């Protein structure tokens, strides 16, 4: 006997037919999805939902953003491809901020704590997040890392995302601004190849400008391409190695830090 439909056939036969269809000399019921038949009821039903797939990440990001704003900490999400000089830029920045501004770093990498070790040498607090197989940080990971950091009003939290121009684009971490770093050893068409990450960035840093004399890199072209993808993007040209352009970057940080504190002071005054 067939154990699926109970018929007497000993040969293999399929049961993949509509539930009220007549099959030879017997009718099949109960082969539908629920495995049972209830007169007048369709076994499957449709549910209309409008669920944002990134909704959960976005709600964690909102929590992070609120917490950081309440504490008066400027959080920046630093994104780039691997090898753009992100960590070197960060180390040089931290050296200059050292002693005057409380700087904290969350380092995202698939493996190793090499970058966090480099950061700690500057005296800044650093938390390493190893994403394992993950290709990006998400707001939930950052929320846990933030719990471990000494948040101080007027401080800056640098979140160094996993080196990747694709995946981090989709995940809001709760940052105040997103900074994309592109080095002159990459192609001028990177903003066109990876438009999502450039479209969502507030600032682009064109790094390693000290190498320009040795390259055929067209600076005007890359600036125009970035602006085609994102009309509002601000752009700075920097060499973390020679220090050229770092003052402009520090000015930008100062301005962004001041913006993060404006609301806070007003809130405190109102209390």
């Amino acid at each position: 006997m067939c154990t699926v439909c109970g018929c007497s056939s000993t040969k293999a036969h399929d049961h993949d037919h509509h539930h009220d269809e007549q099959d030879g000399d017997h009718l099949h019921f109960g082969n539908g999805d629920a495995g049972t038949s209830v007169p007048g009821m369709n076994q499957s039903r449709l549910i209309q939902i409008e669920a944002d797939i990134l909704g959960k990440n976005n709600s964690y990001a909102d929590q992070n953003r609120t917490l950081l704003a309440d504490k008066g900490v400027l959080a920046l999400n630093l994104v780039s491809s691997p090898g753009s000089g992100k960590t070197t830029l960060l180390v040089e920045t931290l050296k200059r901020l050292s002693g005057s501004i409380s700087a904290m770093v969350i380092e995202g990498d698939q493996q190793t704590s090499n970058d966090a070790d480099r950061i700690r040498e500057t005296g800044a607090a650093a938390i390493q997040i190893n994403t394992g197989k993950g290709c990006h940080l998400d707001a939930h990971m950052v929320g846990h890392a933030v719990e471990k950091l000494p948040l101080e009003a007027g401080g800056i939290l640098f979140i160094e995302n996993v080196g990747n121009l694709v995946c981090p684009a989709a995940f809001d971490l709760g940052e105040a601004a997103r900074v994309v770093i592109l080095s002159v050893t990459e192609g001028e068409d990177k903003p066109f190849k990876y438009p999502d990450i450039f479209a969502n960035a507030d600032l682009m840093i064109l790094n390693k400008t000290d190498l320009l004399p040795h390259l055929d890199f067209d600076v005007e072209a890359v600036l125009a391409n970035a602006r085609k993808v994102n009309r509002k993007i601000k752009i700075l040209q920097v060499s973390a190695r020679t220090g050229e352009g770092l003052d402009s970057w520090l000015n930008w940080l100062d301005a962004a830090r001041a913006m993060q504190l404006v609301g806070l002071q007003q809130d405190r005054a109102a209390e």
Partner: protein
Amino acid sequence: MHEMSLCESILDILKEEAAAGQFTRVKRIAIDVGLLSCVEPEALQFGFDVIMKGSLAEGAKLEISRLPAEALCLTCFKTVPVKQRFDACPECGSEALQVTGGEELKIRELEVV
């Protein structure tokens, strides 16, 4: 490949909906993916089959609808269709476009048992 994480988010949503809507199995999921969203449909499909294995949505059909992208031209003030973020206005040639649609990434409908 962040599509894997997105599929895990989809599974989380399905579990929550299953508890709230009293169903035990998902047969079909219809999702909307805007043309400018950061998602590659083929990678999403691949991740979906892997992540849903052993879950309430094992073997479920994933239907991906691509939603068109559009932008407001800040020069001629027309809403125009675009294919990429750096497209110029097809009406007046201006490059000052503000994307107004095409970034969607959401579950629209479930067929459940």
